[in-house]
């Protein structure tokens, strides 16, 4: 493998992995609160379309990303109404949000099909250029890429080192125990959904405003579901999510690079790997898996009475 190929794969895995990382982090937060959001694909689409639209209209990618984040959070509030306030089935509600996101993003993005924006500007970390093995592509990213990794650490810190995170995880494990300890499960679940939507919305925006600089209908191409798989893969842990997202980004890039270099492995077979790997991981965990997933995941909480 040549150095150029290696650098290409490395830089590609970061570019591809970052939107996934945002989506995964958002879902980790939500699932830690005991909610499985199959509508994540919808959140990403909303983020991508709103982000692109606002950027195009205002010329400011920063505003676009901000709007996308808020849109993602609001979108999750609708989901929260169904699964938290109404105690509706989470898989069914999630699929509804997927369809809603597909539809709404299509309408929002429709005027911008075929339009191009400048998008987020790329820059090198000061000093990185001096490193001997750095190249023009490596260490030349937009701000959201640089922020994604500290964000994972922030989410980790929030979950494991603050009172809020402790309560949130308690709600995800056992709403009854959390309630007995004086917490308000519904409020915490809404908070998790809001924050999770915020982060996933940024992930969606990064796709359109950071990577492609265009809007295409359905451009997230199943990344929401890959992120859900990555949440399991990373055992609901924000720092392991980095590994999962970058590994997956690497697999995609490697496969593109291999195609470019004429290697004849079907990309479709490579594409299966993350899904099959996740299944294999689920199987391998065996007895320990019970304690990996939040124990209250997927179950509605309707009070203690």
């Amino acid at each position, binding site marked *: 493998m040549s150095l150029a190929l290696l650098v290409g794969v490395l830089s590609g895995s970061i570019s591809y992995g970052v939107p996934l990382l945002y989506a995964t982090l958002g879902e980790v937060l939500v699932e830690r609160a005991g909610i*499985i959001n*199959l509508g994540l694909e919808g959140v990403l689409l909303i983020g991508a379309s709103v982000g692109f639209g606002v950027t195009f209209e205002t010329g400011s990618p920063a505003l676009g990303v901000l709007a996308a984040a808020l849109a993602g959070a609001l979108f999750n509030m*609708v989901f929260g*109404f*169904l699964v938290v306030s*109404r*105690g*509706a*089935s*989470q*898989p*069914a*509600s999630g*699929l*509804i*949000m*997927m*369809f*809603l996101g*597909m*539809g*709404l993003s*299509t*309408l929002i993005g*429709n005027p911008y099909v075929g339009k191009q924006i400048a998008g987020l500007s790329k820059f090198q970390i000061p000093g990185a250029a001096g490193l001997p093995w750095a190249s023009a592509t490596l260490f030349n990213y937009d701000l959201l890429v640089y922020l994604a990794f500290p964000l994972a650490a922030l989410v980790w810190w929030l979950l494991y080192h603050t009172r809020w995170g402790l309560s949130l995880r308690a709600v995800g494990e056992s709403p009854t125990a959390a309630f007995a300890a004086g917490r308000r499960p519904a409020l915490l679940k809404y908070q998790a959904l809001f924050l999770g939507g915020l982060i996933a919305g940024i992930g969606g925006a990064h796709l359109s405003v950071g990577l492609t600089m265009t809007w295409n*209908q*359905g451009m997230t191409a*199943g990344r929401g*579901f*890959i992120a*859900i*798989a990555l949440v*399991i893969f990373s055992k609901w842990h924000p720092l392991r999510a980095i590994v999962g997202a970058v590994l997956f980004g690497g697999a995609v890039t490697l496969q593109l690079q291999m195609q470019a270099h004429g290697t004849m492995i*079907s990309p*479709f*077979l490579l*594409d*299966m790997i993350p*899904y*099959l790997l*996740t*299944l294999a991981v*689920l*199987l391998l965990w*065996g007895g320990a898996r019970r304690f990996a997933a939040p124990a209250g995941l*997927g*179950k*509605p909480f*309707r009070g203690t009475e």
Partner: protein
Amino acid sequence: MGMSRVAELAPRLLRRGRGLTAALARVVITAALALVAFGLVLLIIGRNPARAYVDIFRYALGSYYGFSEVLVRMIPLLFTAVAAALPFKLGLINIGGEGQLYLGAWLTSWAALTFPGLPQAVLLPLMMLMGFLGGGLWAAVAGALRAKGWVNETISTLLLNYVAPLIVNYYIFGPWRSAEAASYPQSAAFVPAARLPTFGNTRVHLGLVLALVVLALFWLFMARTRWGLEMRAIGGNPEAARRVGINLFRYILIVFFIAGGVAGLAGMAEVSAIYGRLPQNLSPAYGFIGFLVSWLAGGNALGIVIMSFLFAIITSGGLILQLTQRVPYAAVNILLALVLFIVLAQPVRTQKRGGG
């Protein structure tokens, strides 16, 4: 003004539902609320909702061709709804209809491409069998993992959904790729003997009959047979079911196999009747919509027919919106989601089992 009154009243009316008229009233009120809400969306993007709805209904219900197209779309939904409803009776969730449909289509195509010389009377049943096997074995993987208590079936069926189309893509981009249209990845066309017969000059095909037969069997099976009784016992109280000697492991495995097989038949019908070859992106989320149809219908056979029909109208409506109002087809997903949202948002305390 008037709308908020409706919004206030409707949930109360919906809750009161008993009997067929009430059920119909529920459907109508839900649909009306969804149409009003979607109308607002259309207004916001500067379209005329009244015109749009008139167009949709004139097409879907008022024209021979339009109505036939609604039926065409209804066929895969009937299959995939049954595929979700069967495990639902055990209190289990199968959101893998999409993947099972793809694998059914894949094995069907294998039979059609491998044995083009067979007479239709042999080839079509063979394709059906392969379609059933393809979807069934795919779902049985998730079923086995669940029956053993290793992997939750919601997650495994979801993950397998994304693997199945890749298998199809592998074949149509690779070994099966047709030479006739090099830029368009798809398999070679099936021989005429491999095509399901259609009715008259429409695209409505024999799959409709097959789907209704499957649905009737499903209903008979659940309502009349010993196995249906035992399945309902498992769904209603697994603890009691174990204590009266029902073998849960066997039921979970077999039910997932049959459910997947039925979803596979949807794939079989699509490739055999509609496409006549194995195309890329063969399903516009039929598997997912089927799951929601079954969920809305609470696994009730008549409910599945009504909801499939309703959702078929909605998805056909998307085409009309695209043609007459220049609204992208995918926008119709909003209407679909709104219908479901309104149902799910009911403040009903006792949700149907197996939902979460």
